[in-house]
């Protein structure tokens, strides 16, 4: 369990992005470790402890969401996916060069932009680009096919790009531009 505790910061960071709330994140991390302890005889030494813990974290959170508001959860929601799909044309209006544009964005803006993403996309992008999970590890943690993971990362990055671009270029541009529905998701 000591080894598991070394992963606490990453789990907590992910929990904050999931819950958007420090206290709830703390509670989620505690529950995750409690469940991990109880299920530790199912963990195979030598396999990926980090992925195993994130699986528990994700499932615990998803369960809570479902228990509390059985309707609002964005996971596995085709509706959300479709809603996002309709905004495709808006994303590609951003100013280039892209990297230069986003290079100066503030950390706080990135967090705020991440928080505007639907849960499923936020989690996929976070696990891939910040926590450095492989696609397969994300698929395992979220219990979805790997193709779905790639799709969510793709759409999540697209939405994040739109949100960050809007922040960088200011509200005037957003209002007058053709960025459409993506900013509202």
């Amino acid at each position, binding site marked *: *369990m000591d080894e598991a*505790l070394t992963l*606490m*910061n*990453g789990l*907590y*960071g992910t929990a*904050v*992005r999931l819950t958007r709330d*420090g206290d709830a*994140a*703390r509670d989620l*991390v*505690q529950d995750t*470790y*409690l*469940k991990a*302890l*109880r*299920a530790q*005889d*199912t963990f195979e030494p030598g396999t990926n402890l980090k992925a195993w813990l994130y699986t*528990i974290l994700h*499932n*615990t959170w998803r*369960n809570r969401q*479902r*228990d509390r508001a*059985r309707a609002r959860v964005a996971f596995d929601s085709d509706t959300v996916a479709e809603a996002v799909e309709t905004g*495709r*044309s808006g*994303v*590609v209006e*951003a100013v*280039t060069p*892209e*990297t230069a*544009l*986003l*290079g100066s*964005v503030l*950390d706080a803006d*990135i*967090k705020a932009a991440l928080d505007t993403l639907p849960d499923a996309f936020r989690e996929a*992008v976070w696990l*891939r*680009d*910040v926590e*450095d999970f492989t*696609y397969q590890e994300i698929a395992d943690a979220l219990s979805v096919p790997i193709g779905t993971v*790639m*799709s969510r*990362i*793709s*759409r999540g*990055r*697209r939405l*994040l*790009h739109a949100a*960050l671009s809007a922040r960088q270029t200011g509200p005037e541009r957003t209002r007058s531009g053709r960025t459409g529905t993506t900013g509202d998701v």
Partner: protein
Amino acid sequence: MTLHFPTQAQDCRQIEALLPPFVDGLAPPETRAIVAAHLERCADCRRAAESQRAVRAVLVSRRGALEEAAPADLAESLRRSLVPVAAMPAVRPRVSAVAAAAAVVIAMTGAFVWATGRSSALLAAQLTLDHLKCFVLDGDDELPEVTPDAARSSFKRDYGMDVRLPPSTGTGSRARLIGLRQCLYGEGWIAHALYRVDHQAVSVFVIPSADASAAQIQAFGRRAEVIVRDDTTYVLVAPPGVTEVAAAVGLEAE
């Protein structure tokens, strides 16, 4: 060989899911060639790829700043909480009064498990904790009675699992089914059926395998019983004062 030419929109949809591995440099050569060829002729997807590259670059470069530092006392709090199962009730004030005696039972069970790899008694003990946490502590004040059929179909719709609930107990039964939840146990998800039997909180955990053997334990102030029927294992958890629980929920003793 028949060649299929998708429309541009279909093509873009398919390419979208391939963009992450392409952008991350993880696409196998064939996929890479397909995506590259598409990007050559599709300006929208080309810009989408560039956007993805930029977003990933900024996230990767800011990893350190984006990670939230856990509260200073969380690690210590976890260390105190994550003691062996035997001592866990000590951090759960509402069950601590009954836990001291039970702890000995569980500690012995735990030792047995580490020696043999499995134990129905530990299964029962751990699910007793889940019963306390998810039912007794979290409460069920807002849960109306549901029929087993309605619970099953709703569970199947929400979680994709067909649950073999104990046979319906019929009108006038002592047992009222008031909820069916999903519970993470061991290697996967199981169903947790919440009942009121003689107005007392009673849980039936439904495990879709018959690996366990029959067992009865008393732990954390609750009595738990493992019953195997056909290819399903049921774990009943109830206060000691509730008699004939198995019969009440429809799992008559054989």
